[in-house]
Structures are given as C-alpha cells and as structure tokens.
C-alpha cells in the first residue's frame, strides 16, 4: 500500500470517477474494511439493539429529523460485512447459501444475506462524510457503550479504498500531499505573514531554530482566516520567555488523510511533522487552535506511523494553561462583556482538554458563562471531521449548526470564545446566517490582549 503514497494524487480517483477508473474498487474497499475490524468493533456491533438513542445525540439527526442520519445506521455496510465474515452465524448462513439448494426448499429468503455492493458504498458516502463530523457525542450516550465515532473513522477507510469519498476531501488530500497544505498554501504565503507579525509586534518570529523547546505548527485555515493567532502567540511566548520555532520544512498541523480515511496519506503527513521535529531536535510540538489537528497528531499520529514520538504533543491551550500555572503569564484587566465558550469536540470530548480553557478564561473574563451542555457533552458546531472541506455538505453543515445556535441563544452571550479555526469559521458563518450579532474570538488572542507590558 505504501507505493500509493509515493505517487500522491495518482491513486486518488478523479472527480466523478467510477470503480473502473484507477485502482479503486469494491474489492479494495471491502479489504480495507476487513483490516479495520477489531475486538471493539465486534463487541459494538454485537451489542447494538437498535434503540436509536444515538440519534438524539447527533446534531445532524436532531436538526433534520431524518432517521437516515441515525449514527449507527451510517455503519450499516461495515456491520453487514462484519456479520457475514466475522460471526459464526453469518459464516454458517453463507456456507448454507453456497452448499444447499435453498431456493428449491423455499428457504432462500430466510437465509438471504444482504451484500455490500459498490452501489451501497456509493449510497453511504454522504452518510459517512456529509452528515458526520466524527464529533463522538453518540459514543457518549449509547447505553450499550458503542463508540460509534471510532467505527465511522474506520468505515471511511473502506470508502476511500472503494473510491467513494467526497470530491472536496479528495482535492484537499491531494493538495496536502503535493503542497503540504490542504488549501494549497505555500511557505511563501506564511513568510509574508511572518513579516507582518514581526513588523507589528517588533518581535522576531523564530524559524528553524535548532533545539528549541517547542515546534509551533499552524493550520492553513488559521493562516488565511485568522492571522491574529500567530501574532498573539509571538507576543505570549516572548512575554513568558518560551523557546520556540517554526519549521520551513513543515508548518501544517492538519491531516487530510485522517479526515478522508486513508491510513497511507495520514502516515505521510504525520511523518512530515515528525521529520521536522526530529531534525530541529525539539522537545515538544504544539498543535494550533484546531481541534482536528490536535487529535490527528496527538492520538492518531503515532499509530499512523506505528511508533511512539521522541517528543510530546500539546494543543496551544494546554501550553498556555501550563504557563499560567507556572506563573509565567501575567495579565491585567478583564473583558467586561458577557462571554461564552464553544469547546471543540476534538479538544474536549475526544482529547480531555476541558478545564484548561476555563482556567484561562478566568484570567481574562469578568463575566464568563458556560453553555449548558459543555465539555465532554458539548454539541458539535457541525463543520468538523472533513464536513467543511466538502462543498456538497454545505446545507447539512448549516442545518447542524442550528443546535449550536440554540445553545448559544440559551445563555445570550455578547461574544463567543473558541480555540479551533474550523469551529470559529463555522460559528462566524452560522451566526451571520442567522443575523445574530455575536462576534467570535480565539482564546489565544484574548490572552495576548491582556498581557502585562514588559518592563
């Protein structure tokens, strides 16, 4: 499978390609799914009794009311394959179908097994990508304990290998492999931004500094939409005396391979981060204000390249909270308007970073109010897990946002704070769509705004 990586783009299907074009086929898709079956998956499928409670946890079902968006239903092809090939009963039924003249005995209907076909995988493509952000809320409420999100991630491997993944995500993956950025951003663009930051702050932005404590990664979306993040970070790290650096070799933290569901692409992209970090000999790598990038590097990355890292990985919020705890961040004054916060799913529910952002809010907010369901039970903004790179999902993305909107309306904040560029973009667009005048700010900037000037 690794040769696929050597010729990036070559093995991704052209838009609208069918299974005959290239090396993508039903057989490869089924094989990819077989590879993903493990004991947790088998225990999950064995336990589902179709209660449908996962639907009540899913913003896509809750806001559309369409039963086909029930989380466990999105895994039907994978479940069929599991039943057929990984259970005694399924295997027995298969053997009986093969060996006995069931049709003659009128038993063919009774023992008929559903087959996973290419058409089925095509039909499930929008269910697995457009209507799921892998936010994991369903995994928190399932009474029998199914981690549905864990299986969606796996099922996407089958979709990619069979050639049934969204155009937008394929394009992002090709760009990520070819240019290093899912949005096709080059170092040159970042360099211009770095110059601006250096001019406006009067501080140097360290680049390729050997032996720095922290390698700072960014996300393309952040570079394009929120240049204020890099400026804030530069100020805070100068203030706290943190030794850090960017790398010209690798600045992108996100991993399109994990969103689309390709272990090969995921490994290629993670390896770039690891190479850059090892080359600079850094002790730590910082994931930017992006939830997905954090889970990609922190949790999936080592498994993608099948070895532990020689460095630690932190989300920027973890680093800032650590600096706060060490007394290295001195702030003055507080925001006096009513602030609430959106926890990115990938950061809170899927990574356990929940208290840190609240500690930081206490530092700079006079009136902070949490959304009713927050932390590990927060509701997704509707844009993560590749949904925002998938143009086809635009309407669903805005529909799912309505749950977040309702949550925000409940506490009536003046502004929202978050720490993920994708969530932030979605909140801004969604709130604007509903003509709600609630600006959204990044937490890192908020902290930078209140730093005590150095003597």
């Amino acid at each position, binding site marked *: 499978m690794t040769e696929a990586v050597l010729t990036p783009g070559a093995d991704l299907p052209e838009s609208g390609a069918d299974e005959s074009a290239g090396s993508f086929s039903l057989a490869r898709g089924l094989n990819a799914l077989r590879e993903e079956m493990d004991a947790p998956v088998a225990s999950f499928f*064995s336990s589902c009794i179709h209660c449908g409670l996962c639907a009540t946890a899913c913003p896509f079902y809750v806001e559309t009311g369409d039963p086909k968006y*029930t989380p466990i239903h999105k895994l039907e092809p994978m479940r069929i394959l599991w039943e057929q090939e990984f259970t005694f009963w399924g295997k027995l039924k298969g053997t009986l179908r093969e060996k006995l003249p069931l049709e003659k005995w009128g038993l063919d209907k009774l023992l008929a097994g559903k087959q996973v076909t290419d058409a089925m995988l095509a039909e499930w493509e929008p269910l697995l990508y457009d209507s799921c952000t892998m936010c994991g809320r369903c995994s928190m409420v399932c009474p029998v304990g199914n981690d549905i999100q864990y299986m969606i991630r796996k099922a996407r491997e089958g979709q990619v290998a069979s050639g049934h993944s969204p155009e937008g995500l394929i394009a992002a993956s090709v760009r990520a492999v070819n240019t290093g950025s899912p949005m096709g951003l080059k170092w040159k663009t970042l360099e211009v931004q770095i110059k601006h930051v250096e001019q406006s702050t009067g501080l140097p932005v360290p680049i390729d500094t050997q032996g720095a404590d922290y390698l700072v990664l960014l996300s393309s979306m952040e570079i394009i939409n929120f240049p204020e993040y890099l400026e804030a970070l530069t100020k805070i790290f100068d203030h706290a005396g943190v030794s850090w650096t960017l790398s010209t070799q690798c600045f992108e933290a996100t991993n399109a391979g994990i969103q689309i569901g390709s272990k090969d692409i995921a490994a290629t992209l993670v390896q770039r981060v690891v190479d850059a970090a090892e080359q600079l000999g850094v002790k730590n790598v910082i994931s930017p204000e992006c939830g997905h990038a954090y889970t990609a590097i922190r949790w999936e990355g080592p498994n993608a390249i099948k070895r532990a890292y020689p460095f630690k990985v932190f989300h920027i919020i973890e680093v800032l909270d650590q600096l706060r705890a060490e007394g290295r961040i001195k702030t003055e004054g507080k925001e006096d308007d009513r602030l609430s916060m959106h926890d990115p799913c990938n950061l809170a529910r899927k990574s356990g970073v929940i208290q840190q952002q609240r500690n930081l809010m206490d530092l700079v907010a006079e009136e902070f109010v949490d959304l009713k369901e927050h932390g590990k039970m927060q509701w997704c903004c509707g844009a993560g897990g590749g949904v925002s790179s998938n143009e086809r999902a635009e309407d669903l993305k805005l529909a799912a946002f309505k749950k977040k909107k309702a949550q925000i309306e409940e506490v009536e904040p003046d502004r929202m704070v978050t720490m993920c560029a994708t969530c932030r973009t979605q909140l801004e667009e969604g709130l604007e769509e509903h003509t709600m005048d609630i600006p959204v700010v990044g937490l890192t900037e908020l902290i930078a705004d209140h730093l005590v000037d150095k003597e």
Partner: protein
Amino acid sequence: MTAMEFLMLTKGPLFQAALAVFALGLLARLVEIFALGRAHNYAAPRGNAALGGLRTMYKRFEPDPGTFKAAPFDVVVGMIWHVGFIVALLLFIPHVELIKSTFGIAWPALPNPVVDAVTAITLLGLLAALVHRLAHPVKRFLSTTEDYLIWSVTFLVMLTGWLAYHRMINPYPLALGLHILAAEIFLVVLPFTKLTHIFTAFVARYYNGAIYGRKGVQS
C-alpha cells in the same frame, strides 16, 4: 404425550440441550470478539484506560441528563422492564431454588406477590417498548426482523411465567412446561442474536471507556 411427560421433557433433556447451546454459543461469540484483538496504541496516554473502561461499564446505567431530556420514555421504560426482567429471573423463589440445585449457590428471594407485581409491570413495559418501536420514526426505521424476534422471545418467557403462576393455563404441568420451553428458546436464541448484548454490552462499554479513558475523558 401427556402434560406431565411434556414437563419432564422440558425439565430434562431439552433443558440440558438448551444450556449447552447457550454456553457453547456464547463462548464462541466471545472468543470471536476477543480473537480479533486490537492494534497496539503508540500514542502516549493522558489517563488510565483500564480504569476508564471499568467505570464506563457501570456509568452507562446512568443516562446523562441530556439523553433523559431527549428520550425520557426510552430511559424510563427501558430501565423498568430491564430491571423487572432481572428481578423476576433472579429473585423469584422457584428460580433461586433452580439456580441452587444447578450451580449450588443461593441468595434470598423476594415474596411471590412482589415478583408477581414486578412481572406484570415488566410485561406492560415490554408492550410499551414494542409500541414505541413501531411508532417512533428512528426506531421503526432501524428495526429488523431480528429486533421483533428477540422482543417476542423475551416477552414469551415473561408471559408464560406469569400465566403459569396464575394457573391461567391448565393443566399446571403444561403451563410450567411451556414457560420452561420459552426460557429454553430464549437461551438457544441468545448467542445468535442481539440478545448477546446482555453480555457483550459490558465488553463494548469497557472498550468505549478504555478508549476515552486513555485520553483522559470519562465516557
């Protein structure tokens, strides 16, 4: 065959056979699950996986407030008839005696009128759950023949037990034989259907809790 012969058949060879199918079938299912194994996890843990797994095994008995608000019927009715089923199974005097004679362990049972009331409530709960399954758009959409089959098998065990206790089927040996037969069907069907969730749900909960526990989240 007389009613008594029927009863002896269900109490004797059929019971032995059903127990054997249940035990071997369940063992096979569990082996099937665990044999698949898990890939080694190279990511540095934030929390304790095993502890998280064990906690989630219990924690999912307590629905989170949001789920209760979104689906109060599911939570209340589901809990009532599950508890009722377990109470009738494990705390009815004749059942305790059967367990004692089969496995040599015993515990105090509940008075008959209490178990009778619990059984009646459980039967109503099961009926309500069936109506809900047929009426709720998500449940109806998801439901397969198997879902209705396991409902029937579960309902029949409770119903035949209740009818036998109230002598509503005559003669009594026939009533009791029918109840035992229903229990045997339940046992035989269990390993090959979603009734396995009685056991595998704890495995699933463990894995869920361990996956999140490793990341420092109590799921």
